[in-house]
Structures are given as structure tokens and as C-alpha cells.
């Protein structure tokens, strides 16, 4: 079992390295083949051809991105709990409380979504 597990995730490691090598060799080939001609005009940020608006290249970030990220985190962590539960909750050795407990858990989180909804967090303005 341990051996299998090890082999499985060696495959993941090999694929990660292979993917990175594939991209980097592409970059390398482009470095060899493609022309390079630097100029001051090419270095300015592209804003559809006009001279870029003065100031920083980064804009300020609205708070709503943060709120959505927090909500996402809550529900994604819930998903991590839900997946193991979904696989085992029908098993014969599992108490029936497991089934109802997860429903209560989902209910609490869903109440959280309704709360955020009523508070207007989900409005994009």
C-alpha cells in the first residue's frame, strides 16, 4: 500500500518536472530563434496605443475581491470535508449520526451564505 502511494505521487512529481521542462525548453527555443530589438517605445505599458495615463502601473484593489476570497475560503474548506464524507457515509460501519451531522454542518454554512447575501456582500457594484 505504501509502495503504491509512493509510486502514485512519484508520477505527479515526474509530470510536474516534465511540464516545467516543456515550458522552459519552449522559452529557450524562442530565445535562440526569435529576434530581439529593444526600444524605449516598446517598454512603456500598452494602453491601446495612446501614451499611458501617468501614475503607477497597478490600480487600487477594491475590497469586494477580499470579501469574495474569504467566502470562497469558507466553502472550499467545507468541500475538503464533504468529499471524504461523500465516499464513506453509506458504509455499514458508519453510524447514522454521521449523515445528519454533515447535513447540520452544510446547513450552518448555507446560513452563512444567506447572511452574506442579505448583507449585500454578493452585490458587485
Amino acid at each position: 500500500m505504501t509502495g503504491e502511494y509512493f509510486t502514485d505521487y512519484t508520477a505527479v512529481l515526474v509530470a510536474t518536472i516534465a511540464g516545467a521542462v516543456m515550458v522552459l525548453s519552449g522559452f529557450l527555443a524562442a530565445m535562440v530563434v526569435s529576434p530581439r530589438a529593444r526600444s524605449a517605445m516598446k517598454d512603456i505599458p500598452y494602453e491601446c496605443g495612446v501614451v499611458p495615463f501617468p501614475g503607477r502601473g497597478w490600480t487600487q484593489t477594491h475590497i469586494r475581491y477580499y470579501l469574495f476570497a474569504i467566502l470562497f475560503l469558507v466553502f472550499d474548506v467545507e468541500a475538503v470535508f464533504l468529499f471524504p464524507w461523500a465516499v464513506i457515509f453509506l458504509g455499514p460501519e458508519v453510524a447514522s449520526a454521521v449523515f445528519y451531522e454533515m447535513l447540520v454542518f452544510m446547513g450552518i454554512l448555507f446560513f452563512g451564505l444567506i447572511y452574506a447575501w442579505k448583507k449585500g456582500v454578493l452585490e458587485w457594484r
Partner: protein
Amino acid sequence: MSWTDLGWIVLSVAIFIGFITVVVLALTYAERKLIARVQQRIGPMRTGPFGLLQPVADAIKLLAKEDLTPGRSDKATFWIAPVVVFVPAFVAWVTIPFTRDIAIRNLEFGILFIMAVSGVSVAGVLMAGFGSFNKYAALGGLRAAAQLMSYELPLVVGVLGVVMIAGSMDLRVIVAEQDAVWYIALQPVAFLLFIIAGLAEVMRPPFDIPVAESEVAGGPFIEYSGMHWSMFSLAEYANTFAVAVLAALLFLGGWRGPAPESGWAQDMVQALWLLVKVSGMLAAMFWLRTTIPRLRIDQLMAVAWKGLLPVAFLNVLLTAFYLYYGWPAWTITAMSCGVMGGAVALYYRRRSARRGMPETARVRVERGRVVG
């Protein structure tokens, strides 16, 4: 683990690199041809017979193009971002099986692994956005992050219904469990959720708001050119193909179809069945691109959080009750149809309620600020 295992893994990954390259080239050609037909054009015709060599010509052009790094950009972040986007798209393929026997490596937590890994590419898009030192790129990167995070949830919770019925996260087992009936019949709601959220996850039209050229002029990829840009597009097509294959595996019975009983002929015919189903899914995705206009970003977020997520939770709830109390199979189909009908009815009721109002009444102003 023995050296033979490692040898097989390296060999299959190497074969897969060739496979995915050919698939991406074929997809770009197929998409251009199909869209051309919808728009009553004939598409690429000049390079090779029927323009078949067009993708090769494109690849050579991208290779020979100047790979520009803008002067004020954050060089390291800008340079490495395509790697961060592409590698997850590639690694997710480790566990996707093509027939019962053909996969790089079958993982026990297959579907969860795929969704966890492909979530990493959000970081790459954000890096591209911030590394470019460009306002449009930064805005597009943030939009991409918001969209990918929001649609991750309906995707994950929708797939949960399938995992519950199959009782496993192993993709091979999920296909094996569809012996009697395909899961599209038991989980039509999850299927629709998967298609909608999957399109949004790969940022394809009508969900291509982060890269909308009319709004943010190409979004996070605006400053990229040459090989760096083509890596983003490679990852996009690899992901598109992955969504189509997963939809076929999870809902359309995977490689199931009339095939010989055993031997290599069985594998070949089964792989062909999967290819047929995947081609159908891809054609539908390309078709959607030509016929549905782009959403607005507030509509996009509202669809994810107020529409898809509650429906996904309802679907999981109904599936849980159906399985736990052992109701007959037709009940879950009937309940799913009920959920879909209810959602559509609710949408049209709300829409017609809004329609009744004059245009100006929809905007509410408080303390000199538009609030809704």
C-alpha cells in the same frame, strides 16, 4: 517502487507530452474551422490541404516572434507566470484515464486531485496580471481570480453528487459504476453545473470577462508576446480538453459503448468511444462561443453565488437523501428535473418583475452615490 515503475511513468509522461501537443494543435484548427462555418466563412484554407497546416504555421510564427519583457515590469514574476499557469494544467492529466487500462497513473483521489491541482493556476494568472505593470493587466488578473474562485465552488459541489453516487473519487471506479445508467440521467443538475462552471474555469466565452478585449484589452496577457503568450494559450486549450474529457467520464459513461469483450481491440474501441463523446462536448463548447454574447462581471458573480451555488447545495442534499433512504432511481431524476424547472421559473419571475420597472427606477441613489 521499482525502477520499472519509474521507467513506465517517465515513458508515459513523455508520450503524453506529444499527445497533448497534437491535441492542442488539432483543437485550434477545429475551433477556427467550426466558428468559420457558423459565421458562413470557410476558415483557414491556404496552408496545406484544407488549411490543415495552419496550426503548425501559427506555432512557427509564435516561436519566431520577439519574446518581449516590458521595461518596468516585475521581471521574475512576469517571466515565470506562464510556467505557473501551464504546469497545473499539465499535472492534472496524470490521473485522467482514457480507457480502463490507459492512464499515466490512476490515483485513488483522482477527481479531488484534479480540482485541487488545477486551482493552482489562479496564482499564475494573478502573477501575470501584477508582473506586467499595466493597469489593464492588473484589473484582468483580479477579475480572473474572482471568477475562477467563484466558479470553483459550483464545480466542486456539483461533482460531489457524482462522487456520492459512485462512492469513490477514483475516475476508473466512477466510470465502472455507470454500468447500468450514465450519471447524466441521475445527475442532470450536476452535469449542467459542471458545463457552466467548467467553461468559466477555462475562461472561455461567454465567461471570458478577465480577457475581454473590449473592456480590459486582453487582461492579464496584454503585455505577453511570442512563446510566453503561446504557453498561456497552450494551457487554455489543455484545460478545455480536460473539461470535455471529465464531462464525458463523469456523466456520459466515459469509454462505455459497444466494444469487443477483451484484448487490445477492446481498448482501442473504448478509447474511440471516449473520443466521440469528447468531440461532441468540445463542439458544443465551441458552438456556445459563437452564439452567446459575453456576460457582464456583476452578472457573472451573481450567477455563481446566487444561482449556481444554492442549486449545487440543493442537488447534494437531494442526492444524499436519495442514497441514504434508498429511494428508487427515478426519484432522483424527477427531483433534478424539478430543481431545474424551479430555478428557471424563479429566474423568469424575477426578470419579468424587473422588466416592469422603468429604466431610471432601477438605480437607487443614497448620499450622492449609486447603490443599486
